[in-house]
């Protein structure tokens, strides 16, 4: 399994942006997002300023922009929704490239796209410049409830274990001649997902046993 530094989203570096304490970065991201979302949706030049600001931070962090752009694919479902909006919304119609669409829907779609992309890029920048462990410490310093921080810590710890298990199941399926080419194969994938869920659940039980064996009584020790 993967050796070396951090997580898939993390880009190792020593820039000023990497060095800022994690809790400040989290607050900055939160502030940025609130301002972006609160900005009226037709203030296009203002969104341009936000983008420049973000680009400046990315430039300072020395994370290659292509590295971030590749990871913006997580936004695709939102893009699809944004593209649908002009067609399904009601109200006055307007014409774009010879197609009649809803004026309202068009504006809402464009705004969704802009705000979403800004948010995703900003979040990716945070992830790329902060080790997951630092992020958790930052959240702790911001007084996020212990239980939530712990749940996230377990997620970070077991993400690789569970994806490793998922990959081995895929290899095992394909080694027996299976490939999910059409919807008739989906039930197999669904059963694999179910098996993965049960395995993860059982691992959770075993981890709990191991915790009890080392004197865990329901509260994480402060160390």
């Amino acid at each position, binding site marked *: 399994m993967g050796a070396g530094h951090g997580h898939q989203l993390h880009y190792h570096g020593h820039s000023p942006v990497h060095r800022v304490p994690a809790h400040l970065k989290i607050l900055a991201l939160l502030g940025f997002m609130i301002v972006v979302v609160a900005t009226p949706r037709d203030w296009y030049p203002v969104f341009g300023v936000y983008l420049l600001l973000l680009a400046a931070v990315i430039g300072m962090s020395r994370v290659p922009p292509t590295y971030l752009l590749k990871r913006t694919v997580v936004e695709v479902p939102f893009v699809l929704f944004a593209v649908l909006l002009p067609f399904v919304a009601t109200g006055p119609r307007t014409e774009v490239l010879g197609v009649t669409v809803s004026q309202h829907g068009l504006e809402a779609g464009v705004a969704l796209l802009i705000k979403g992309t800004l948010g995703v890029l900003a979040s990716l920048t945070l992830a790329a410049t902060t080790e997951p*462990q630092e992020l958790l410490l930052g959240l702790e310093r911001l007084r996020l409830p212990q239980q939530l921080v712990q749940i996230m810590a377990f997620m970070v*710890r077991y993400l690789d274990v569970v994806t490793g298990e998922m990959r081995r199941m895929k290899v095992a399926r394909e080694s027996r001649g299976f490939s999910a080419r059409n919807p008739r194969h989906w039930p197999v994938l669904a059963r694999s997902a179910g098996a993965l869920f049960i395995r993860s659940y059982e*691992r959770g039980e075993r*981890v709990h046993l191991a*915790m*009890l064996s080392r*004197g865990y009584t329901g509260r994480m020790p402060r160390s």
Partner: protein
Amino acid sequence: MTPVLDVHGLAYAYPDGHQALFGVDLHVHRGERVALLGPNGAGKTTLVLHLNGILTAGAGSVAVSGLAVEKANLTEIRRRVGVVFQDPDDQLFMGTVRADVAFGPANLGITGAELDHRVLRALEQVGMEEYVDRPPHHLSFGQRRRVAVATVLAMEPEVLVLDEPSSNLDPASRRELADILRSLDVTVLMVTHDLPYALELCPRSVVLSGGTVVADGTTYDVLTDEALMKAHRLELPFGFDPRTAMPRP
């Protein structure tokens, strides 16, 4: 002298009615290294889970250095009995090696410099001190197994209980772990299917089969008793003969 582990007439049935142990007697004395052998389904894991009070005896009793395993004593029992589970990914659940090794002693209320000291000493004992700030999932399997041993050593247990310590290790890691276990000044109970490993590390072996102890003697005698071995589905690896591997003790 009070035995470190004193199991007396231990019987246990799982809630679904499946009875796993039928009156187990086992005594382990200070400084001993004992192998617990037996086929799959013999009740070895069930027995181990009684030693630190995860499971509660249906009948009979378990005591650790004279302290009965019961609800009121669980914290002290779990300090005294260090269980290392088979899959290090189950044992190592924190974000860094340091936090993981500190988890046990911190649960005992140890803090500050003493905690740091314990963590580093435990890691030194398994030769992993330079990995103290790494996340566990970036270590090799053999390294994770060694850190798993350290997580328990940090609690300064009286007895170390290892579940299949050599499983999934490559031969070099397997030997390194043997060297570490030999170097520790602690009582060891080792559950294993790896009979050469038992012979190498443990002068004494106990065979558990069908929920009872069917043999208890020197590992050499157990492994060379062909009738006993055959009756309880124990087999030596191809080409391995205890008579030539090790002179009769």
